[in-house]
């Protein structure tokens, strides 16, 4: 799609950012480096090798939905600190910092939208907000999205990117698993639909709850979809891990996802699914 601007590929491996991390616009697979507008124009897929860069929630919504169709819901929800959790820093400080850096109140954005003229409800996760971790607000937003979808009789499309439950909310974050599961059950009982799109990474508590309960499960290429991450498995079992351990491709082979859809085809695929589930909603 769109013409690629080659110039920026000349300087492979842009100088690392502060702290020695590779620049976020340098492809970790082939080393090509891009300007932000180039990546954005190509849906943040590396034009050279097809690597899928992470996509922020707002940009994901722009990529998927019809222009100006998105209307956010429950944006006012903010997490409090039920356990007065303090590790090396207070949880409240981490929350403020995350909001400042992402411009989002929490790790999930929900709202009404249309895709190729089909109405739907969206629930999109933001990995940049504390690793997309699911605390009480994410659980509440997802449940609200289910209810909103059911009320309006439209399918819910979730796009997940999450490290799992939010430790700083302790056992209450574990309770978001059954909470979101119950929300999906209510949606299903009303004849509703959940289309689950799993982006990199969809792991632990989110994989073990609503993300796996979609009527259809679609994964992005190369996305890590595992309950336990490769590092922990490696450390615990000392097994040699398969090269594609936990990746979408391995999940597909083992029967856990319906399709791996490149981001360039995601919008049209979701639109097709919305058409198919239209009389089921």
């Amino acid at each position, binding site marked *: 799609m769109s013409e690629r601007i080659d110039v920026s590929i000349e300087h492979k491996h842009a100088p690392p950012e502060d702290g020695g991390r590779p620049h976020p616009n340098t492809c970790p697979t082939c080393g090509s480096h891009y300007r932000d507008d180039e990546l954005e124009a190509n849906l943040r897929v590396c034009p050279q090798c097809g690597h899928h860069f992470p996509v922020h929630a707002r940009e994901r919504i722009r990529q998927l939905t019809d222009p100006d169709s998105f209307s956010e819901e429950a944006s006012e929800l903010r997490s409090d600190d039920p356990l007065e*959790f303090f*590790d*090396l820093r207070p949880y409240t400080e981490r929350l403020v910092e995350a909001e400042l850096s992402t411009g989002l109140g929490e790790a999930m954005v929900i709202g009404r939208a249309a895709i190729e003229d089909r109405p739907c409800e969206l629930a999109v996760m933001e990995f940049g907000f504390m690793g997309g971790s699911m605390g009480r607000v994410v659980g509440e937003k997802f449940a609200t999205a289910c209810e909103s979808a059911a009320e309006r009789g439209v399918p819910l499309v979730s796009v997940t990117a999450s490290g799992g439950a939010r430790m700083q909310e302790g*056992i209450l974050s*574990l309770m978001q698993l059954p909470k979101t*599961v119950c929300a999906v059950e209510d949606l299903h009982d009303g004849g509703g639909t959940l289309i689950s799109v799993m982006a990199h990474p969809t792991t632990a*508590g989110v*994989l*073990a709850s609503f993300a796996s309960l979609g009527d259809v499960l679609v994964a992005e290429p190369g996305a890590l979809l595992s309950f336990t991450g490769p590092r922990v498995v490696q450390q615990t079992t000392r097994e040699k891990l398969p090269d594609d351990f936990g990746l979408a491709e391995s999940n597909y082979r083992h029967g856990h996802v319906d399709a791996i859809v490149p981001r360039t085809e995601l919008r049209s695929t979701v639109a097709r699914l919305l058409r198919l589930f239209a009389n089921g909603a």
Partner: protein
Amino acid sequence: MAREAEVRLRGQLSRLRSLPLLRGARLSGELERLQKQLERIVEEPSDEEIWRSVELARNPDRPYALDYVERLLEDWFELHGDRQHGDDAAVVAGLGRFRGRTVVLIGNQKGRDVKERTKRNFGMAYPEGYGKAMRAMELADRHGFPLLTLIDIPGAYPGVTAEQHGQGGAIARSQSLMARLRVPTVACIIGEGGSGGAIATALADRVLMQENAMYTVISPEGCAAILWRDAGEAKKAAAAFKPDAGHCLELGVVDAVVPEPEGGAQTDFDDAARLLGDALAESLEMLDGMSGEELRQQRRVRFRTIGQVSAAP
């Protein structure tokens, strides 16, 4: 938070007190227990006390699920296998008669000696284990048998095959099935209630917790390794995320705390079983007379509203 819990429990108490004591002793037992729990809550446990409950929850001499089965159920018949490709010994499931009625029981099961521990994978379930549990749930649902689950799992198993067989999805589907059941369901954390492995069988109408059990989103060591970057700081992590029964009750995550014999369940299996049996029976009695539809609706509302946040004014 202790303050809020106090208010909530006081409310519960006065509601119970105002009820005509139709069902007699049992309900008044519930009342007494609430009273005691209330007394315990008003004083915050110290970090040391929290850590002591972590150690007790993991005590290898603690009774395991089958120790309770032996003491609480008659005519026990164990079910085996997931009907797909295996029989996971870390999960036990079966039918038995509990105080006069047939129930289905699902439990996590650790091993006593080295050989049994290996066989049972230290109580860490594989997807095959959740599969067996789901099969047992379906059996309960088909025949209207109440479901009891005894939870004691360090966590899901961090292994390659477990991932390849889809443990994330299995944990999700097990919860989803529990959310659909039309029979009374009671869960009790009897040791370690570790993360996804625990919640897979804990989406119940009533969730109980033994006095010295723990219920966590991640192990204290795992939490410390991530947030403190040092697994040795587990004690600090435990103090920070408060996995003990008192706090779980305060937070509304469990409905009641089941007392253990003085010093912990490991000191007297028979007495521990008696206390657990009474609590389970009482919970089942509370659910008696509710229709399948009521049960599942109330169950979903329960989990929909635990620790719910509300919009800022």
